[in-house]
């Protein structure tokens, strides 16, 4: 698998799995608990036989003992298709945000793919939206790595529209400096349809603390937006940025989105484990 610079990362997350946070819709057999019951050897419960049921699923021993016809049910497991919706706008090309985003996608894709889940990628930049449909085949993580490697963040990206075509598990990696309100609405619709939604809010350490040197801060997506950042405005900047991040997290969580704020100076391996951690272990 041509994973390029991600070899160490893949080694580090080799045993990591990314379980669904709730039962998934019935689909191809997989690692995630499905909402439906199937005929697996593991017993779960009985259900009275109904016309149309497969007679092979009758518990003949029980029928012989009690003269009652029951169907033996077992918990079903299904795969969970995953789409990584990556923000490739110009604002992501700052400090190590883009690098971290790529590493997180590769790490999470590897974790999902290890559970036999189909994984795909939707890359949204200011120029175009590039898609890699969710697949389970062997080299899909490499395909994702190649597509990410050829991408160059630019312009302003509209992520909200891309959510509609995402797989049931949609992981959005963005700095939330674009259409975050529209994205929240789209993710809410996705959740209503039975999907799962993750928001990985990528933040640069240099954004959290730009330093004391005076600068004329310029928005890479809108060069006309220039504000002087110096000692007198530092405090106000930090307060407003903190408030923004808190508001985004609050709004997304209120819709049921799993929100993770990651910093570009954190190790991707650690972050992958944190994001993929099972629901019951998340505080």
């Amino acid at each position, binding site marked *: 698998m041509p994973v390029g610079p991600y070899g160490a990362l893949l080694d580090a997350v080799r045993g990591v799995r990314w379980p669904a946070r709730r039962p998934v819709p019935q689909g191809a057999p997989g690692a995630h608990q499905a909402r439906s019951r199937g005929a697996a050897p593991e017993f779960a419960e009985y259900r009275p036989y109904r016309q149309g049921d497969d007679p092979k699923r009758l518990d003949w021993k029980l029928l012989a003992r009690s003269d009652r016809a029951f169907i033996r049910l077992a918990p079903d497991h299904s795969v969970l298709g995953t789409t990584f919706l990556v923000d490739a706008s110009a604002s992501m090309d700052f400090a190590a945000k883009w690098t971290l985003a790529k590493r997180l996608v590769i790490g999470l894709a590897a974790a999902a793919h290890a559970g036999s889940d189909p994984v795909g990628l939707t890359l949204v930049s200011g120029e175009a939206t590039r898609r890699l449909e969710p697949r389970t085949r062997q080299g899909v993580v490499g395909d994702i790595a190649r597509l990410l490697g050829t991408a160059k963040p630019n312009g302003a990206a509209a992520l909200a529209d891309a959510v509609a075509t995402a797989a049931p598990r949609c992981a959005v990696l963005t700095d939330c400096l674009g259409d975050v309100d529209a994205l929240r609405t789209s993710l809410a619709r996705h959740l209503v349809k039975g999907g799962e939604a993750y928001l990985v809010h990528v933040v*640069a350490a*240099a*954004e959290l603390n730009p330093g004391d040197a005076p*600068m004329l801060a*310029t928005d890479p997506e809108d060069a006309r937006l*220039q504000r002087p950042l110096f000692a007198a405005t530092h405090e*106000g*900047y930090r307060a*407003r940025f903190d408030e923004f991040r808190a508001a985004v997290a609050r709004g997304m969580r209120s819709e049921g989105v799993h929100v993770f704020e990651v910093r570009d100076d954190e190790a991707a391996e650690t972050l992958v484990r944190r994001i993929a951690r099972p629901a019951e272990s998340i505080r």
Partner: protein
Amino acid sequence: MSFLVPWMFAAGIVAALGVVALHLLSTRRPPVSMLPTARFVPESDVRAVARTSKPTDLLLLALRALAVLLIGLGFAQPLPDSPGPSVRTVLALEWTTALTDAEAARSAARARLEAGDALVIFDTAARVVDASELNALATPSVRRAALSPMYIAARDAARSIARGADSLRLVVVSAHTADARDAATPALAASWPGRIERIVLPAIADTADSPAVQVLPADADDALAPALRALPRARGTHLVRVQRRDITAVDSAWLRANAGSVLVHWPRRFTDSVRADGVATDDGNTLVAPLARLPVSEGAVIARWRDGAAAVSERPVASACLRSVGIGLPESGDLTLRSPFGHFLGSLVSPCGGRRDRALADSLLASSRDTLPLALASVLAGEGNERSPLTPWLLASALLLLIAEQILRRRLPKAGS
């Protein structure tokens, strides 16, 4: 070095200090840096004022400060102090034909002139000349003087030499005759802020005697003869010959033999073109009567007809003069016996250069200002339209420095870029 507008120099210094202060307290844009979260920075003025602890662009600063200093210096109009005595003289010299001895007047002026003094030559007009031109003055040709233009020119001359002097003295070397005065003369004399020394030169008519008049030929029926015998206002010790016929070699010899004499050529001609007309002399006498216009010779016009045509002309001959009278008198009537004709005749027989009236000059001298202190040079230096010759050069230098500053500023990298 002194300044015409000293406060402008002080303003230039203050402005230059301001330029230095602004250079140290520069307003500059901070360096541009990409920050995706720039929208969260509170809005404020993009420019930031920063105090530069270590001055940069010292050449630029020097150019600016120097340019401002030169502009202030230029508008202050610096004047170099001219060398010379602390008391300087403005000498006004009358230069007219009325002076009995022009060379004596020149010598009197020369004796009073020193380096740094100013010389004003005047007759009916006045002009400021260089003291070195005194020896090169041409023979005077104007009959009378006027003091009023002299006082005005003397003030101009005083302003030109006042810089660097303490006091100024006005010395007027003139005949000081009454006809040199006009209505403005007393006021102009009083406006001189100090002492006026007057040196009185002898004028030609400075006498109470009457001239000796001879009429040729002495015809008994010539109406002019009795009038000439009773000249009421004629003054002078000179000889006058009135020739009623054509001038001969005898007349020329007589004229050359008698210095200061006057030969009046007044042909006695009978004409029918007598009509009412008027003639006026340049010393103010007029005659209105039936008269005939006759041709006059070339020369300085001393009387004119009412339409400006020449009626009497005067031409110097050696040290005497010849007057040509182009006025035909009626053969009948009592014109020559009337008082206005007598006055008019007095002008025609006046000495060469015109008649002088000493009596009024005495009253002028009575109001002398000899006892006043000398005029303060600072009083005269501060008036007028004096300009510093250095001002254009200073302003041009400042302009060049500003152009150099522009060029240098374009070559320097912009702050924050």
